[in-house]
């Protein structure tokens, strides 16, 4: 009866940190200060804010999710190494062996593509064979793909400044670049849930949508040469882009994840693969969580977009097709959440809805750029 109550108290975040966590944070602080001293002249006050904001954010995320911390360090290290091989000369991307075949931005992105394909195949194999080992391999492949993809983006960022200082910009400014971002964010969201729910069975499903994006990237690269770095049109030269776009893609990524989980749910509820997939209530919970995260981030992204529009176009809301479709996507998921929360609806209806939601989302993401015209100038096919 004299139990110590501290046993029952869940420890606060700071209490849980060990020396590795602190070391990680110190590395991030040092890296940010280094980046600041080196690149301050290219940054305005907001961007300086974002740099240190990102430092805090990634420290926190890395503390909460250790694997992500490792990824952050890995991306930092490999990117710095790659950049050091350039000697400030873009031509070396195709001359130096390591750059040409591994870690120039273009090669790293190609490796990401390859690794995502391998990861998906392995996940399906693991599901089919019920192989724990294959599952672990698939997870490792997905992490590697994420590593290569982020390295590719970081190095691309650097390369854009090599073309000309005024061309330099963060690589989230056109369809090609945001598709890479989409693959990476969706994969990371998946990996997070994979760890939290301790299940590898959904990897094959989620990587389906990632690999669809990979297919698009490949087509876009080889058929349209969209991988060439283009300078930014005036409307995109804004610090807002650095927060609006990532927030949007956390939203898109989560909605896609939810849709893929929904497809697994629908299969399992029809007794397909049911013995291999997680229980229905787990799938349902995961679907809800993904949509909740997506909804929150999509809300933030839309608000940020409105604030940016107020600065660039002269009004926070112009009923531009992209804006309007963002609203439609948002209303769609608001309705989904209402049905679940207010009416207590569960089961296949919501799963179907989440799956169809992906079509709406894809249209907002891609279809608007393809079929409709408007003020959003970052990407036409």
């Amino acid at each position, binding site marked *: 009866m004299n139990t110590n109550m501290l046993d029952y108290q869940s420890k606060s975040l700071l209490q849980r940190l060990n020396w590795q966590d602190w070391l990680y944070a110190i590395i991030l602080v040092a890296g940010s200060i280094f980046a600041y001293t080196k690149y301050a002249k290219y940054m305005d006050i907001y961007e300086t804010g974002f740099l240190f904001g990102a430092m805090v954010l990634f420290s926190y995320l890395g503390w909460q999710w250790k694997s992500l911390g490792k990824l952050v360090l890995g991306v930092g290290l490999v990117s710095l190494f790659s950049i050091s091989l350039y000697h400030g000369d873009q031509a070396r991307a195709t001359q130096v062996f390591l750059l040409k075949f591994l870690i120039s931005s273009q090669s790293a992105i190609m490796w990401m593509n390859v690794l995502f394909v391998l990861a998906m195949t392995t996940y399906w194999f693991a599901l089919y064979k019920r192989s724990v080992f294959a599952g672990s391999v698939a997870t490792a492949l997905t992490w590697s793909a994420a590593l290569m993809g982020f390295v590719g983006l970081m190095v691309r960022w650097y390369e854009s400044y090599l073309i000309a200082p005024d061309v330099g910009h963060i690589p989230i400014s056109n369809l090609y670049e945001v598709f890479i971002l989409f693959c990476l964010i969706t994969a990371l969201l998946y990996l997070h849930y994979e760890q939290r729910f301790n299940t590898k069975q959904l990897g094959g499903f989620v990587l389906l949508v990632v690999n669809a994006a990979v297919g698009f990237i490949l087509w876009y690269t080889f058929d349209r040469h969209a991988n060439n770095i283009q*300078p930014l049109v005036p*409307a995109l030269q804004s610090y807002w882009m650095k927060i609006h776009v990532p927030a949007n893609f956390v939203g898109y990524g989560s909605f896609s994840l939810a849709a893929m989980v929904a497809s697994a749910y629908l299969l399992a509820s029809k007794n397909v693969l049911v013995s291999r997939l997680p229980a229905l209530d787990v799938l349902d919970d995961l679907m809800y969580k993904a949509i909740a995260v997506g909804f929150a981030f999509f809300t933030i992204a839309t608000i940020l977009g409105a604030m940016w529009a107020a600065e660039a176009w002269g009004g926070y809301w112009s009923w531009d097709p992209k804006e309007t479709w963002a609203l439609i996507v948002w209303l769609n998921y608001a309705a989904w959440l209402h049905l679940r929360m207010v009416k207590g609806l569960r089961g296949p209806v919501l799963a179907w809805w989440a799956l169809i939601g992906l079509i709406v989302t894809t249209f907002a993401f891609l279809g608007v750029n393809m079929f409709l015209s408007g003020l959003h100038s970052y990407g036409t096919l």
Partner: protein
Amino acid sequence: MRFAVSLLTVLGIASIIGTVLKQNEPYENYIIKFGQFWFNFFETLGLYDVYHTGWFLVILLFLVLSTSLCIYRNSPLMIREWRAFKEHVTEKSLNAFSHQVTFKSSASLENTKQQLGLFLQAKGFKYKVRKHNDGSELIAAKAGTHQRLGYIFTHVAMVVILFGGLLDGNLPFKVQEMLGLKRIETLDIPESKVPAISRLSTSNPSFRANMTLPEGTSDNVAFVRVRDGYLVQELPFRVALKDFRIEHYATGQPKSFESDIVITDPELKAPITKTISVNHPLTYKGIAIYQSDFQDGGTKLNFKVWNLLSTDLQPQTLNGAIFQKGSLGNGADALTVEYNDFRKFNIINLSPDGRGKPHNVGPNVTYKLRDAQGQAKEYVNYMQPLQIDGKHYFLAGMRETVQEDFRYLRIPVDDDLTLNGFMRFRATMLDASKYPEIAHRMASTAIPNNKNAAVNKQFEDSVQQLMRTFAQGGYNQLAKVIEKNVPENDRVVAAQTYIKMIHLAAFEAYNMSLVANKKPELVNNADTQALVQDSLNAFSDMFFYGTPYFLQLDQFEHKQASGLQLTKSPGEKWVYLGSILLVLGIFSMMYIRERRIWLLLNPDGQQVHFAMSSNRKNLDFEQEFNLYREQLKGLLA
């Protein structure tokens, strides 16, 4: 709720229509696209400006009302839930819980109560204890009830945002229009002539208006586009444009648009001078001034005018300026020239497969030639030659209606990269007095050793005849003649022969034009053959150019105009306030989980009834319940 959902659905569908049907286009475009009947029908529905129609605003209004009503009805409950501990539950109702368990305990009531209190505190629960008459005690605990505030925040946010949006919408104008107090102006008349009924005063609380300022001018009104007309918005200050600049990247794409503007206002001691650019507006007196676009501001132009269908070798000169008019020719054939647009930079991708890099091909000018009947054709001419498939051409486009694409006359450049070579060639080809010599030169190269004068004469006559035909209408005329005079079976052969002959004749004509200008003759090789062929093609296409006048842009004095957007949006603050509420609300609704625990202690403390509930039953809750059950079991054992 059901009503709100239906409204949202209609809103969604209307929004989709608005994205699929391009909004706010000139009305002629819609007429052409849909035909008169559907055009009228869609116009009645307001589909060309869906988001500003009355019915759309009414839906938004109802949404505000319905959501407000929802808040009004649900908030008291939410607030009660937020504050209440629910310490009045009975043993019986605890038994009905899906998550409950009874523990045995050996400690005293006081001791158990204290332990449980500490446990709840450690888990972050707040609690209240209530003694029952029979001596038993109930601990009622809650955590995460702020989630309930999330509901209020989210929904109040919706109302606040929509309210802000309505403030910035054109509701006041709509009402005034309905009452007949305001009317849009649809005629293209000078601003000063626009009547008061189509003017909005400086006290108009919200607007989004445009203003085009040529460099070196100033203005104190802006225009609000409404449907197929406009309103004049008066401004409480004057804006002047000192300079407008476009900067380019090395690749030629635009890098920045900047306007140096000066604001003067009697209330200001000194004028405000500021450079605005995309993403960097200026706000004065609650009116934000944005760089939105740019156009020509009346560039002065000097042309050389060639009469393509005459044998003139010298061009006339013509001076004009964008947005002004000039005239060409005289009498019944006189044409009005309307100078419409000048662009100094044109970034075009000229690679045949469209994959190469776009680059700047230099200035072009767009103008219309209107005849006495009012019929106009539109022309676009590039000042510098463009490189196509490795060769350089002057491009001159023509179209008869705006729906068509331009069809281009491609004039090959001469050795000096000018038009002159072609113009002399053209004059020679048209000049019948030159035909005998052309025919003679041709005969001496084609049949050099022929001594038979009759054959020679016959050959030369047929060349001259061919030249005359060609000079009347190029290949097209040739085809007509063949069709008329040659039996069907022989036409292909005849055409081939004529084409070969006209090419040879053209080669000689080109050389003659060179000689006349004291230049060396062409050496016969693939390049010169191609040059002659391109010249012939251009000559033949000339007859489809729709006018004999070819305006070659010679010089220009660039003057630009900056397109500014001026907005006043009192609702913006509300929208941002609502946005903050929305984010707070959504996060608290989704990431704060409301949970309640009841612990009913028997009078002797020997038995503890533990029950737990949440308004959202999901996996997290199951796990938490299981954890607490085990921990409490250990604690009480």
